[in-house]
């Protein structure tokens, strides 16, 4: 019994208690909102998940690092806790609510610990309760930390997705493809633009490629350099590249900045660029009602 073994330190007592009462604690936690709402399929699953968390806590307690969020004892359950927090977040819980739900696990386990002592008011018993309280507080921090890590991962994934989504290559006509560029053209994005454009040139056997920069707010020397490199690469693939959508303000800025786009074929609008590409391929577009006389 814990209270007879006064020499044992509070964390040791807590660890032994968690190990011995593993089943009871897990049964109680399985009914707590955090576990019940995450493991909706079966209660046994929730109990098993609870047991893993109890084991981890016991491990941490025996190491004596009750307040160390980064301690190795939490490692086995980090994934599980992160998934639980994510599930709750997806269900609409705010971080504060999730933290509250983790805090809700403390009550039942403290109650069980106090029941272990014949007199729960002795200094030693109180020390043990305090140790367990600290441990549960650390668990809460671990859950929040894993949840935040998951968010950072999500943001990074979305950033990657945005890189790809934002650069579609459109087939305008047989042998003519276009890329409407939108937003900031940094090095990473222009690399992807170049790759997808070159691939499209091969796939579509395109002779003409149009880079439309209507949606690019700023054309500085780096963006211009990226454009020129893309144009040069397209040329090596046997396609003629046309840059369209240069707005008046950007045209003036490019000139004053000293960028020489003389080697690049440019047109004011995407329509002009398409008209150029069509006429170079000997395609004539005319109104149907104008008959053969239209030129």
């Amino acid at each position: 019994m814990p209270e007879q073994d006064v020499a044992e330190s509070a964390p040791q007592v807590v660890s032994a208690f968690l190990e011995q009462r593993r089943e009871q604690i897990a049964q109680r936690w399985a009914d707590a909102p955090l576990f019940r709402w995450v493991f909706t399929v079966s209660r046994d699953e929730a109990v098993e998940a609870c047991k893993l968390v109890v084991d981890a806590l016991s491990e941490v307690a025996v190491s004596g690092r009750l307040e160390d969020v980064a301690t190795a004892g939490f490692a086995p359950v980090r994934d599980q806790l992160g998934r639980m927090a994510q599930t709750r977040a997806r269900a609409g819980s705010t971080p504060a609510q999730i933290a509250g739900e983790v805090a809700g696990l403390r009550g039942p386990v403290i109650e069980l610990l106090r029941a272990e002592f014949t007199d729960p008011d002795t200094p030693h018993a109180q020390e043990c309760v305090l140790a367990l309280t600290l441990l549960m507080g650390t668990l809460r921090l671990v859950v929040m930390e894993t949840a935040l890590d998951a968010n950072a991962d999500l943001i990074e994934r979305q950033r990657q997705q945005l890189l790809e989504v934002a650069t579609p290559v459109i087939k305008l006509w047989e042998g003519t493809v276009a890329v409407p560029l939108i937003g900031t053209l940094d090095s990473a994005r222009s690399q992807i633009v170049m790759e997808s454009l070159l691939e499209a040139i091969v796939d579509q056997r395109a002779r003409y490629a149009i880079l439309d920069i209507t949606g690019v707010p700023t054309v500085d020397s780096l963006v211009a350099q990226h454009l020129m490199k893309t144009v040069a690469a397209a040329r090596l693939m046997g396609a003629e590249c046309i840059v369209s959508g240069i707005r008046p303000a950007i045209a003036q800025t490019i000139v004053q900045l000293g960028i020489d786009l003389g080697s690049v074929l440019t047109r004011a609008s995407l329509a002009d660029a398409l008209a150029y590409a069509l006429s170079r391929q000997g395609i004539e577009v005319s109104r149907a009602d104008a008959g053969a006389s239209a030129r």
Partner: protein
Amino acid sequence: MMRPSGQAPATSLPIGSDADLAWVRQQVRQYAAQLGFGLVQQTKLVTAASELARNTLVHGGGGQAEITALDDGRSRGLRMRFTDQGPGIRDLELAMTDGYTTGGGLGLGLSGAKRLVHEFHVDTEPGRGTTVTAVAWVTQVPSSRPGAG
């Protein structure tokens, strides 16, 4: 003249990544629009800011951008100051030459940015970092080539 409403007279922004560059551009655009710069001048200012902020990042290893709204009683202006603690510029005259680059770019950053604004000043010393100050005024007719050559 009054200060543009809802805009602090000066903002200091960190420059440490590509994302910071985008933020600097956005802030400069917002300042310029609120100060009454026309679309062409706005675009020039944003482009100059982009060049100078990238220099701070690439050559200076990161630093600070400071945007200040100016008012000399006759016209409004915008001052952009880019500070880094990097290696500095050894030969400023060479660095200001069109086409000279140490970073693999087009070599138009400093010289081009100078042409996009009205006042331009570089304060640098090898090993002591670099501070570039650029000022543009709203009403003044943009001199097409200040310091031609």
